[in-house]
């Protein structure tokens, strides 16, 4: 009797479990991978991108998803490490991800390009080194897509602003020679300045892990530079800003995206965080990002940084690629991505070039940091980019 009851009970449990599986399978999900530095040295960015992507996915799902299927974000921690990123990408591919939100790190983008091209799952990133999206043969990397100005476009915006708007012609440069991001922002800038009749009076380097830049800054000061171009990560940007004051280099800093918030709040001396120019992806005043701004602030109790909007726009791009590619498979996303045209994102109007897999004609918003406060100077795009 007891035995019979046990069998019935076992059958009932088995049926319930199978029904559960069937139910889970019927609720269709589209897996979107997300590879960010969650616990490494650039986790400030990684977490911001992730939060932005999550807000976009919540919004899409709240509106019914894509053809009735809900989007699901699966995040892998790259720890800002190339090997971890490769492991993470392969894991996402085998899990069935149809596209991957990539990190804002060029070194990782460069390592992923050949693997992603082979796997056929798109990586939509903000890795600005153009080699990530265009191969050595001049052809686009099939699975790699950039959604903010490339380092060439960005550097030229900064260089044009330096020489054409600010009228600064004698430039000192300090950059991390071991970092693809920094090098990719340095070369086009220097070329543009020279071509426009300016002069690089001192070109100084440092390497990964260096923390004391006073010697290089003193040499730039001695060379009589009108300004300092410093295209590097946020921690070094904080150190250079403090050390610039310590060596008495009283000239403007022309900086990269890392000078965007929260940079100024991390410099403990507002007198040092002064006379710094940077180009950012967005303006707080622009209406298209108000909704995301408000959602973010309500959810996390703080103002969003630029990487939040990049994360949000990456998901918008993936959704648009699904529409244009005719479905939500990895192949359809990859086919749709180069067709994206005039998509209104939070960071601007996005058009992906089929030739370069980079955005076309994106302007940037110029800012000046004065005594620790950001002052917006309006959108800027060089004449060269308008043609």
């Amino acid at each position, binding site marked *: 009797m007891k035995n019979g009851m046990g069998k019935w009970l076992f059958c009932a449990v088995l049926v319930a479990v199978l029904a559960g599986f069937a139910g889970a399978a019927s609720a269709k999900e589209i897996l979107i991978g997300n590879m960010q530095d969650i616990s490494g040295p650039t986790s400030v960015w990684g977490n911001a991108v992730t939060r932005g992507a999550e807000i976009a996915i919540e919004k899409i799902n709240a509106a019914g998803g894509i053809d009735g299927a809900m989007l699901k974000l699966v995040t892998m921690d790259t720890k800002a490490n190339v090997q971890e990123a490769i492991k993470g990408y392969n894991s996402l591919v085998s899990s069935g991800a149809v596209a991957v939100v990539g990190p804002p790190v060029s070194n990782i983008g460069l390592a992923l390009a050949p693997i992603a091209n082979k796997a056929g799952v798109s990586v939509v990133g903000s890795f600005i080194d153009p080699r990530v999206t265009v191969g050595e043969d001049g052809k686009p990397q099939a699975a790699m897509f950039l959604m903010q100005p490339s380092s060439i476009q960005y550097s030229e915006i900064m260089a044009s602003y330096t020489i054409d708007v600010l009228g600064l012609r004698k430039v000192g440069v300090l950059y991390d*020679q071991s970092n693809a991001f920094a090098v990719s922002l340095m070369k086009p800038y220097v070329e543009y300045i020279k071509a426009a009749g300016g002069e690089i009076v001192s070109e100084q380097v440092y390497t990964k892990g260096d*923390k*004391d830049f*006073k*010697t290089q800054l003193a040499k730039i000061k001695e060379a009589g530079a009108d300004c300092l171009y410093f295209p590097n990560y946020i921690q070094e940007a904080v*150190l250079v800003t403090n*050390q610039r004051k310590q*060596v008495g280099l009283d000239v403007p800093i022309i900086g990269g995206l890392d000078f965007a918030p929260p940079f100024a709040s*991390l410099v403990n001396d507002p*007198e040092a965080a002064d006379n710094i120019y940077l180009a950012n992806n967005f303006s707080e005043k622009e209406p298209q990002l108000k909704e995301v701004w408000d959602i973010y602030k309500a959810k996390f109790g703080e103002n969003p940084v630029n990487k939040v909007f990049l994360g949000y726009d990456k998901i918008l791009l993936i959704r648009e690629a699904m529409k244009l590619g005719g479905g939500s498979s990895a192949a359809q996303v990859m086919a749709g991505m180069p067709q994206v045209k005039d998509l209104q994102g939070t960071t601007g109007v996005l058009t992906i070039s089929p030739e370069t897999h980079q955005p076309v004609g994106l302007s940037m918003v110029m800012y000046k940091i004065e005594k620790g406060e950001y002052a917006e100077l309006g959108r800027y795009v060089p004449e060269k980019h308008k043609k």
Partner: protein
Amino acid sequence: MLMQNIINGISLGSVYALIAVGFALIFNVLKFSNFSQGGVMTVTAYAGYVASRYLSGRIDSSLVLFSVVLAAAALSGAVIAAAVERLAFRRLRRTKSEPVYYFISSITMGILLENLITIYASSNFYSYPRFFTTSAVPLFGVNVAVTDMMMFGLSITSLLVLLFILYRTKIGLGIRAACFDVNTVQLMGMNPDFLVTMALMISGALGGVSGVFLGMNYTLYPQLGQMVVKGFVASVLGGLGSIHGAVIGAVLLGVLEIFFISWVGAGWAPVFIFVVMLAFLLVRPRGIAGVIVQEKA
């Protein structure tokens, strides 16, 4: 430019000196290079930061606040170093293990402390609050950072205090005796556990002071203590085991580093420094001080 480089070099050497002195002290007692000092420096830098955040609204005077923060970091350094001794070295000492095991154990402790900080404080970097309104002062026609001047002053002060403890106190006498022969020290009625712990606590307190200055100068991040390698190089240059040699080696290393950055660039500077170091050690393997390290009896 020459004077600016010399001053930058001395200030950088001051940081290395504080680390190198800790190395030299422990090498004297236990005959190994204590790489857990890096982890201790990191944790104490964070401890100082927490103290500064907690006390910044409660203490008005910047100088008093800074002194309290330094004291808190030094104290936490001493406590952590004592814990490291208990966990990582005491059993090895009692079982008379080979020096290589101390070395491995110290590296493990350094990594453990660094990872604990990463887990509890994340890998984001933090900036110490501003203690002084002036960040740089003109001296000999060049700008000198206030923190660099203080670091130099404190390195010298720490060294003098350490020498006073070692040569003018009973504990110092015991530590020096333990450096020579732990077994005989025990026969003389002294407690070697206590003496070794004291030596590590002094080294940890120095690490605490270094940690605060490193945090102030270079921001706060979990890998901050990896600068301990430079302290080790300085103590090798100075002569492993020699305290005044460690200071001379550290300042020399700092000045060399700055001049090489100025002459050949930051990319090549480490190569040149290690070439100079190798050449120097070929000529003078015992380092600047020429200390003959006593083997344990």
